[in-house]
């Protein structure tokens, strides 16, 4: 029995503005499972972000369905969705005077009452989340004093505190230096495997994507979605076909 959290059934993604509909990709099929780290890859402008936004329920589905836990994503209320999917984006503007704890505490918003008062349990969950990303020392630092990598970790902690089965991250490693990239991917992989979450990221860092992910979702130039494990992606030559150029080699295992 598979633990499917999100399923795409013949989904068409794109934008609607006024009478004009822009289709970015259509007929997408695939499913995400619990305990998986999935990397969504593809060239610039292939629709990675649009696909993520659609899965997160921010963008209307033009055709087909996106099903989460047996129910169409659009049938959930905003409040219900907040407990199913959490997001981490790259365009977070740091807020002065807001501490790491405050920011992670935002993840508890779907569970707190009218005034947003944190219970002892909430506080415990927040501190645990900060611990998982290894930012305990920074608990009371303000967010605007953190580096990009540190801020990324805090935002991941926010997503953990939100206690959703699915976490979606839009290019979580894009502004980070090499060690931070690896560290972030390690955290995400551990989180998926140990906490049984579905973690979906979009990325341009193929090296880390292939190394750390359980599955690769590739949106190719023909706007077709190819889903496979990293090693199969390489062995079948799919990676090379999409991203390769002369003298570029993808190796499935270094031993």
């Amino acid at each position, binding site marked *: 029995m598979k633990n499917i959290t999100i399923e795409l059934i013949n989904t068409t993604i794109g934008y609607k503005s006024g009478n004009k509909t822009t289709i970015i990709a259509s007929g997408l099929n695939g499913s995400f499972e619990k305990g998986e780290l999935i990397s969504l890859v593809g060239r610039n402008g292939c629709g990675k972000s649009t696909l993520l936004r659609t899965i997160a329920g921010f963008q209307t589905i033009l055709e087909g369905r996106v099903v989460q836990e047996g129910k169409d994503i659009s049938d959930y209320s905003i409040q219900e*969705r*907040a407990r199913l999917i959490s*997001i981490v984006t790259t365009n*977070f503007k740091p807020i002065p005077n*807001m501490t790491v704890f405050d920011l992670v505490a*935002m993840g508890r*918003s779907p569970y707190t009452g009218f*005034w947003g008062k944190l219970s002892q349990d909430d506080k415990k969950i927040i501190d645990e989340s900060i611990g998982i990303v290894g930012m305990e020392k920074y608990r009371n630092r303000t967010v605007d004093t953190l580096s990009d990598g540190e801020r990324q970790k805090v935002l991941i902690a926010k997503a953990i505190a939100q206690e959703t089965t699915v976490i979606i991250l839009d290019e979580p490693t894009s502004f980070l230096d090499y060690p931070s990239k690896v560290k972030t991917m390690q955290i995400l992989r551990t989180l998926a495997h140990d906490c049984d979450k579905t973690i979906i990221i979009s990325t341009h860092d193929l090296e880390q994507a292939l190394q750390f992910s359980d599955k690769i979702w590739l949106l190719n130039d023909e706007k077709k979605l190819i889903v496979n494990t990293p090693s199969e992606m390489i062995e079948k030559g799919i990676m090379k076909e999409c991203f390769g150029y002369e003298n570029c080699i993808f190796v499935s295992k270094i031993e």
Partner: protein
Amino acid sequence: MNNTLLFVILLLLIPFLVFCNLMTGSVEMGSELWKTVVMTIRLPQTLTAMSCGAGLSVAGLLMQTIFRNPLAGPSVLGVSSAASLGVAFVLLLSGAIGGTSLSHFGVIGNSAIILAAIAGSLCVMIVIVWLSRRVAGNATLLISGVMIGYIASAIIGVLKAYANEEDIHAYVIWGLGSFSRVSGGQVGVFVCLIAILLPLTMLLAKPLNMMLMGDLYALNLGLNVKLHRMWIIAAAGILTAVVTAYCGPIMFLGLAVPHIARGIFRTSDHRILLPATLICGAELSLLCNLISKMPGANGVLPINSVTALIGAPIALYVLLKRKSGGHYI
């Protein structure tokens, strides 16, 4: 220092400032005339100053959060000008079209002025929200505010050309901004309006905190962003409009005070910032009123000069501190 202690200190400052405001002035203390002056002039003026400061400051805080822009504020974004334009329509055109001048400020005239101010400010708030979501960056938003201000004053100029002498005079006086024009029963109405509106903004504390994160994050945290943005705009617009209708356009208080509150409490939590801004706003306004009476003799400084002298440096400080063109507040 802990927050409770800070609040206690701030709250204790209020009676002190009220006392100073009631005692300062040119009339000799203790006489019959003095009693009359305190009760009929200084007390209403003090209450007006407090309500105005608290109202504009909270409106400023709401705007800064919703636009995620440290330079947002009622006077900077042209919301005050728009409220003035609403007032100008009523004040200047009623005489010319209706034949009877509203300048005498009857009850009906007064409510018409308030409604006109609310209509004006809400229109501009909606335009600015629309603009802020299409164009990014502080500069664009500020320029839009300045332009809206110009357009408003241009239209007011045109209206003046058609208005009669008496109405123009009333409008010019109103436009100077003052805490002392509101008198007698009207003070009661004004204070009550603000006293009802301000606690209502407290209900927005959690949504405001979530809005700090940005639209997408707020939505993902379960907030109906569109609905709450509308409520916040309505709250900020109505507060600005009510204050502007009664006191005229008051500069810079709304921009400066939220920064002072943030500086004192070092937090981004609106459950603390809202009451803190409210109290600081009332106090700074009382202080400005006190300063405007300082020169002694009969000279009273125009209140807008005083608020601008205090508010403008704070605005400048915020601008310079964020020289990287960077982020919010």
